């Protein structure tokens, strides 16, 4: 039974239910969303990923958590409003949340610097991740940024160093990490909180090494050709999932997550609970070994015309035999 058949069946039931005055339309919408065919248009997805009404990190945290307390500051220089974090409970399980924070309007976006984080944002993220590690709390990150802030102050305070240190330390953090790309996953700024055991993309999110606009202006020599660039770069959740770089796609209702945030939040929550069950049965060594191997395998190279993977036996040395 293919998706279009399911869709028409759902519509039939909906009409019946309305006739009988039974209110199951919300449930049906969800069912419908789950089996909705993805939009085939890449640029539409880019625009949806950037939609200002799209649920942001705090929206999802509030929808997912029983309780949440935000924690602030990097303990060195400042508190970056473009990167938030704290401790929440999901069905009683304590979890450290970290995420880029965008606004839903101009005022919020100015306050949040459009989700473009500074070095102190990445350092706050690391502080909270290490706090989680110390107390054996799992970490969930929400990625939602066009990139790290490309400004003079960010360079002065070492945005490159801050991201690099996060890539290094998250990759060997001794606690489970689950990431969700909820909107735009742009470049090093996205990856800076995106090295994880499990990473998912929302149905209408994108993930790319550079913005389509940047790619167009550099490689296509015309910033106006962003639409074309997005196609060439293969930035959609479906593309990146096919590359084997993410662990799955989180569904949204047709038209995008902003239409029914609770639906996507519920899907995220289920995914977290399912993954935590599996990840929390592992030892820290097993986690890090798996995480390292997964990262290690990404890339397409050949050697003497054969595709290679060469681990140099190093993992045994680093992790022992456990």
């Amino acid at each position, binding site marked *: 039974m293919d998706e279009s058949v399911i869709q028409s069946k759902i519509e039939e039931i909906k009409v019946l239910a309305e006739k009988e005055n039974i209110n199951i339309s919300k449930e049906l919408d969800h069912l419908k969303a789950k089996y909705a065919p993805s939009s085939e248009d890449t640029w539409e997805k880019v625009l949806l990923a950037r939609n200002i009404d799209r649920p942001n990190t705090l929206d999802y945290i509030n929808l997912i958590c029983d309780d949440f307390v935000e924690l602030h500051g990097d303990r060195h220089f400042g508190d970056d409003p473009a990167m938030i974090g704290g401790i929440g409970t999901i069905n009683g399980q304590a979890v450290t949340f970290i995420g880029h924070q965008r606004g839903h309007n101009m005022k919020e976006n100015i306050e949040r610097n459009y989700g473009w984080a500074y070095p102190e944002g990445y350092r706050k993220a690391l502080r909270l991740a290490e706090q989680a590690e110390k107390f054996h709390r799992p970490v969930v990150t929400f990625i939602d940024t066009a990139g790290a802030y490309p400004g003079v102050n960010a360079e002065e305070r070492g945005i490159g160093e801050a991201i*690099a240190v996060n890539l290094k330390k998250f990759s060997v953090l001794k606690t489970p990490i689950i990431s969700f790309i909820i909107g735009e996953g742009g470049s090093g700024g996205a990856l800076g909180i995106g090295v994880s055991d499990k990473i998912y993309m929302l149905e209408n999110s994108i993930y790319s090494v550079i913005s389509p606009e940047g790619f167009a202006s550099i490689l296509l020599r015309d910033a106006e050709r962003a639409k074309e660039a997005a196609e060439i770069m293969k930035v959609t959740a479906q593309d990146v999932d096919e590359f084997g770089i993410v662990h799955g796609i989180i569904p949204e209702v047709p038209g995008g997550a902003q239409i029914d945030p609770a639906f996507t939040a519920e899907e995220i929550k289920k995914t977290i609970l399912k993954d935590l069950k599996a990840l929390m049965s592992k030892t820290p060594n097993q986690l890090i070994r798996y995480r390292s191997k997964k990262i*290690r395998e*990404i890339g397409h190279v050949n050697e003497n015309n054969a595709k290679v993977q060469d681990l140099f036996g190093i993992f045994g040395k680093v992790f022992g035999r456990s």
Partner: protein
Amino acid sequence: MSSEFNIGRKNKNNSSDFPNPFARVTDTTCRECHHKIKREKLVEELQVCPECGFHMPMHPYDRIATLVDEGSFTEFSQELTSLNPISISGYEEKLTQARGKAGLNDAVVTGIGSIDGRQTVLGVMSFQFMGGSMGSVVGEKITRAILKGADEGLPVTLVTASGGARMQEGIFSLMQMAKTSNAAALLDGLGIPLFIVLTHPTTGGVTASFAMLGDVSIAEPGALIGFAGQRVIEGTLKEKLPEGFQKSEFQLKKGFVDMIVPRAEMRKTLSFLLKTHESESKGWMSR
């Protein structure tokens, strides 16, 4: 493909037949001060402009020759070449061109050499090869180099020069940042040193990964070191760049490099670091 290059390639695992240092250097006009410099003078000065001190990009084999004990270098993973993971049209042709121009299979040379008798894994990037951009091959070779150090208990020295991620490999190039940084984490966990030499220019995804993860970071004078490109900062955000922005001296002042070392003293400095980080000194301490 130049004939000098072929000498190196033919005898790739035979260190005694290492390509003649500076065989590829020709009479040059300094890009910074437009001073004309004869080949002989340029070789003598290790490709540093005698007029303005500009440290010119070097071919990896030339740089290696200036750093290691003669005949001590053995290259590995030389045959690694790139695929076209996101099927970008024209990428294969671009790679072929770059191979010919730089005389290398990709933008980094990795191997093992010794400095004053002390062994180190050595990775040297080439800005001539597609702007030193990091795709799957650079990521894999840097990762292998770091893990080789981890495996054999050898210090790792990486000389960077890069415009950033190789966009032609899309999301796969982004992931090389995670891969190389994870390798650095594993090396760190074993207590083996990583020395980074930042040369002109080191930017983008390389700066935001292994290049900033050195136990000791050395910069050549006047090198551009940063994450965001200057045109992006000036263009998109209309910010005015301060004097000397993102140069080595700026990064020293901002606390991100340990020292600035002129090319002529680089070998001596690395030798001192290898000596003072020797593993024998661990003997007194149970781990």
